[in-house]
């Protein structure tokens, strides 16, 4: 076996004598692209349609009277892998349980959706809001009021 077998001969990569047509082809291709509509979107004004199963910010669902579905059973807090959910339950005189405090630390949350699956009352769900931004860590700790309406926190640009 000679040395030559190991060396890739570069001149073999292009057909002999072809310089001009590939150059013109390349120019034509880029010119065609120049007149094609861009496939990127103008993000904050135009938004990408995400899957129905998208797991974004949480929402605490409310019933017809505007009361929380949640009965503060604590299953979501129990199953939550990063332990992002804190619940302080409360039981009134009639025996109805509801959460006095329901806090999700959105910085700890890994958006696995286990809380949604664990919930027996269909009280918590993950919305399609995927671009919540803020300046302070405290702003990412969502209490009941914030969790009721996560759509308010869609990033609107500026």
């Amino acid at each position, binding site marked *: 076996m000679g040395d030559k077998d190991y060396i890739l001969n570069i001149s073999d990569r292009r057909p002999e004598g072809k310089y001009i047509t590939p*150059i013109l082809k*390349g*120019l034509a*291709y*880029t*010119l065609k*692209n*120049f*007149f*094609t509509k*861009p*496939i*990127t979107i*103008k993000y904050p004004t135009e938004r990408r349609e995400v899957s129905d199963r998208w797991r974004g910010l949480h929402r605490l669902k409310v019933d017809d009277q505007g009361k929380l579905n949640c009965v503060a059973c604590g299953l979501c807090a129990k199953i939550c892998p990063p332990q992002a959910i804190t619940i302080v339950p409360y039981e009134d005189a009639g025996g109805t349980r509801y959460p006095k405090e329901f806090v999700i630390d959105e910085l700890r949350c890994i958006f696995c959706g286990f809380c949604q699956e664990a919930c027996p009352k269909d009280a918590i769900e993950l919305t399609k809001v995927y671009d919540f931004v803020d300046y302070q860590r405290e702003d990412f700790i969502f209490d009941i009021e914030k969790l009721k309406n996560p759509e308010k926190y869609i990033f609107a640009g500026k």
Partner: protein
Amino acid sequence: MLEFMTILIIKTLVAFVVALLIVAYSTWIERKVLGHVQLRHGPRRVGYHGLLQPIADGVKGFFKEELIPDNADKPIFILAPIISIGAAVTLVAIVPFGDTVTIMGREITLYLTNPDVGLLLVLGISTIGSYGGILGGWSSGNKYGVIGGLRGAAQMISYELSLALAVIAVVMVSGSLSLVDIVHSQAGLWNIVKQPFAFVLFIICGLAELNRTPFDMPEAEAELACGFNVEYSSMKFALFFMAEYCHMFVFAALVTTLFLGGWHGPIIDGPHWFFLKTFFMIFFCVWERSTFPRLRYDQVMSFGWKILLPFGLLNILLTGLWMLIFNI
């Protein structure tokens, strides 16, 4: 005399401002065209379709921190961008934007100067401009800078020759070194028809002189981390950047002048034709940049010396023969 001086100063100011505006907006054209070629939008946020982007960039450049490395050769480090931009802006003086116009009863030429050796001046000054990059890379005390500067020097020497050969063919056809006379000689037939090979040669070598993408050896982002201007920041970097785009404008103007008939054209006015052709050439510069990958350094050198130089010589020889036979 006073009147002459006033007219000259006004013309200088106008040419300077127009050149800087074109420089600023060719960066916008570059980003916009590159964006659309890559199926993106390019700048959109600052102003209508990003039209204020160059101004925002300029303002940002002024407010950036100025850094001079400890082991840089300070005087030369500061001098390099000045040489670069100085040479680039000086070239604008020789560009003939149009023929004479009559404003308020005075004949005013739409070019600043018309030296008899205009073309030689262009070649000489553009070479001085390349010194800016070389000195900048060398003085910044950075290995990438040095390699970028050396590559710039080698490339400049190799491609300047073929550029001059392409220009010689045009001079033979036109019979003058003055840019204005060259444009006048193209009234009937543009030089691109008479000298198609010189046109191709000029564009290739011009792109190499501009350090634009197939030949951006001195910069070579991927291998040299920006080459000669690694250590430059703030307005010093912006000056290099402006010099590059100013050179691009002058190159486009030169192609227009030498090959595309300058201000000649039907229907609309001379200067309009000139700027139309110039902007087409600027667009071409961006277009080819988006198309071609960077050549390997040794390939650039062998292409310059083994193909372009003989090609240029042959072109001159054939032009001479053609002129001898047809007695032009």
